[in-house]
Every structure is written in C-alpha cells, then in structure tokens.
C-alpha cells in the first residue's frame, strides 16, 4: 500500500518538475473543493437534522439548540470557501 503511494507521489512530482500543465485550472479545482465540502456537510446535516426534528417534536424548547446543532457542519463549507480566496 505505502509503496504504491510512494510510486504515485514520485510520478506526480516528476510530472510537476517537467512543467506539464495541470489537468484542470486552479480556479476549477477550488470550485470543486467547495462543492465537495458542501456535499459533505449536507450529508452530515441530514442525520443531525432528522434527530433535531425528532427532539423538537417531543419538546418545543429544543428548537434553538436543534437549529444550532443542525447548521454546525455548515462551517465546513465556510472553511472551504477560504480556498477560493487563496487560489
């Protein structure tokens, strides 16, 4: 496993040194990163949201807490947005 990773890394590094153009432009890669991060947080929110709605159905006072916990994974997307400004 580790050996193959080393091989791949080597290949990538050589590619880089020979000055070939990257497969996709940097801005497209950044967009991809944000999109994937959004997908991840969406998946995380699915479970939390279901649990939060369940808790709110039993006890109305859970609304605030449920809302906060549900949107917590949203920070993932915000952090991923940083990439867009860095590139």
């Amino acid at each position, binding site marked *: 496993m580790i050996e193959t990773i080393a091989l791949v890394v080597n290949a990538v590094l050589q590619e880089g040194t020979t000055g070939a153009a990257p497969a996709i432009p940097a801005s497209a890669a950044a967009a991809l990163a944000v999109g994937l991060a959004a997908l991840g947080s969406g998946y995380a929110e699915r479970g939390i949201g*279901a*649990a939060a*709605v369940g*808790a709110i159905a039993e006890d109305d006072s859970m609304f605030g807490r449920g809302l906060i916990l549900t949107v917590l994974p949203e920070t993932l997307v915000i952090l991923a947005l940083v990439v867009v400004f860095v590139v």
Partner: protein
Amino acid sequence: MSSQGTAKRGRSSNYEYVIARVRSRRASLFDDDDYRKLVRMGTGEIARFMEETEYESEMNALGSRYSGVDLVEYALNRNLAKHFEDLLRWSEGALYDYIARYLRKFDVWNVKTVIRGLYAGSDATEVEDDLIRAGEFSERRIDQLLNAGSIEDVVEQLDDTIFGDPLAAAYEIYEETEVLVPLENAIDRAFYETLLDGLPDNPEIDSPTGLYIEFLEAEVDFRNLRNALRLARSGADVDPSEYYIEGGKLFDEQSLAQLASNFDGLVAAVRESTYGDDLDQALGDLEDAENLVEFERALDAALLEYADKLSNRYPLSVCPVLSYILAKEREVDNIRAIARGREAGLGPDEIEQELVIL
C-alpha cells in the same frame, strides 16, 4: 398496517429521528422517587397522580367509564399501545422490521384475548377493553377479530398471518379436546419462532444487529428457562419438550428435558452458561430462598440493564428503541403492581419487592 409495513421495508432506516424521540420519552418515564411516592398512595391517589402525568389524556378518556384500579389498568394499556404504535409509525426500513418483530407479542396477546373471550362467551366490548393495540395488526383486522362469531372464524381470519398454519393445526386438536391450551401454545410458538426468522445468520458479533439478535436469543432462552423452572418447581408431570421454543442458545431440546426434572441441575447449568455473571446474585437468591417470583424479577432487571448498556454503547442502532420498549413495559407492570397491591392492602415494603426498578 401490513400494506404500510411492506412499503416501509423498502426504504432505508431513519435511526436518527426515531432515536431522538425515543430517548426523550425514555427520560420522561417514572423514576425511583415517583415509585416511592406511588407505593405510599391509596388507589384513588394513584389515579389522581397519574392524571397529572404522561397518562393524562388516557385517564380523562376512560374516566367516565371506569374507576379505581380498573381505570388505572386500562389507561396504562392504552398509553402503552399509543407509544408503541408511534414507534411503528415513525420507523422505516430495517428499523421498522426490527421493532415490529418484537412488538408482535402484542398481536399474540390480542389474539389470545379474543379467543379466550369467545371461549368464555364474553361480549365484544369487554374483550375490546382488554386489548392492547400495539402490535402489527391493523385496526381493521382487530375489529374484524372482535366481530368474529366463533373461534373457527378467528382461525380463518388469521390465515394470512404468521399464526395461520400453526393455529389451523391446533384448531383440530382443540375440536377434539375442547381446551384452549393447544391454541395458545400454537400462538406463542408461532411468535417465538418467527422472532428469529429471517435475520442475518452470521452478523458481526459486536455490530448492533448482532447484539439485537443476541438479545432476542436471550429472550427465548429466558422464556425457556422460566418454563423449565416452573416445571421443575411445580413437579408437574408434563413433557417439557412440548413447551420448548427453538432458537435459544442455552438449551437444546434434550438438555431441557433432562434438566426440567432436576431443579439443582438446572440452576447449576444456568450458572455455567454465558448468563451466569449477570444472574449470579439472582441465582444465589433462588437457591437460598427457592423463590421463583423473585428470580423472575431478577431476570427482568438483568434484561433491562443489559438493554440499557447496549443503548449507551450503540446510540445509532435499534438498541435504544429496544431499551425504551422494555423500560416502558416495566413501568406499566410496576404501576399495575402498585395499584393492584394497594387494592389488596399490601404494605409499601411488600409492594416494593414486587417492582422491577434499576
């Protein structure tokens, strides 16, 4: 519920939603303090106390028709049915299947009650009040069962359920002997044998599904154990294998037949088994006091504690739901025991012994 049931089985499980609700309800069950207060109350006070809790709507709905301990009892049943029906309503996919599997025991109870009612010639409304509508049967099916004119009708109506074939076979024996025992045995057996039917054969030992199966096996084992102990104690001349339920790990048919006649051997066999650690104290009590009732309480408590442990260890699985179901059943049993005990004039200490409190 059956058509809805098949539709639900196709979807994926919604553990998060169900468990969030179940945990909230688990937390609102009666605790030690409530029980301590309850055992010191009279029957009227118990009814009053319950009106101020969870059971309010049931107490109000039934209050005009019943009073005293009967009111408490029917309100408990109805509340239990409401909560368990909710569980089935919420859950989807595999989770629905797991829950329905266990809750079918209320179908068993309902079918038995209907058959007993017909046998004793009670009228439909009396029988209806004794039903616990918590199982998988739809309202319509239960109403049909209630309107059945004879036991044969009931057997025919259940033709398409898991009870169909065993009941039909038992009905022939019933016609010859005119006693209900074969019918009731057939229902119980059909339930326990489908309990483990169709679950994965070799689940990972530590996965929640594996533990759930282990739990169901434990349930079968404890049922076998209870039957064996009762036979051993009463010394009745009955063939134990007639009451043997397959699927457990503790006994096979032969070993049970041998042990049922030998009380000490039975206790030793359980001590050696995987349940030995959990039941150690209870087994000691059993040997000392030779008190079966207390041992059965200990079995219940051990089961409840085990389910609680699992529910904390595997939060996103069927285990929390199971632990809630058990805890709720115990609560209903406890309150009923308190109410009946007070009615019979037992003292608080005597009643406390009858309760299963963790």
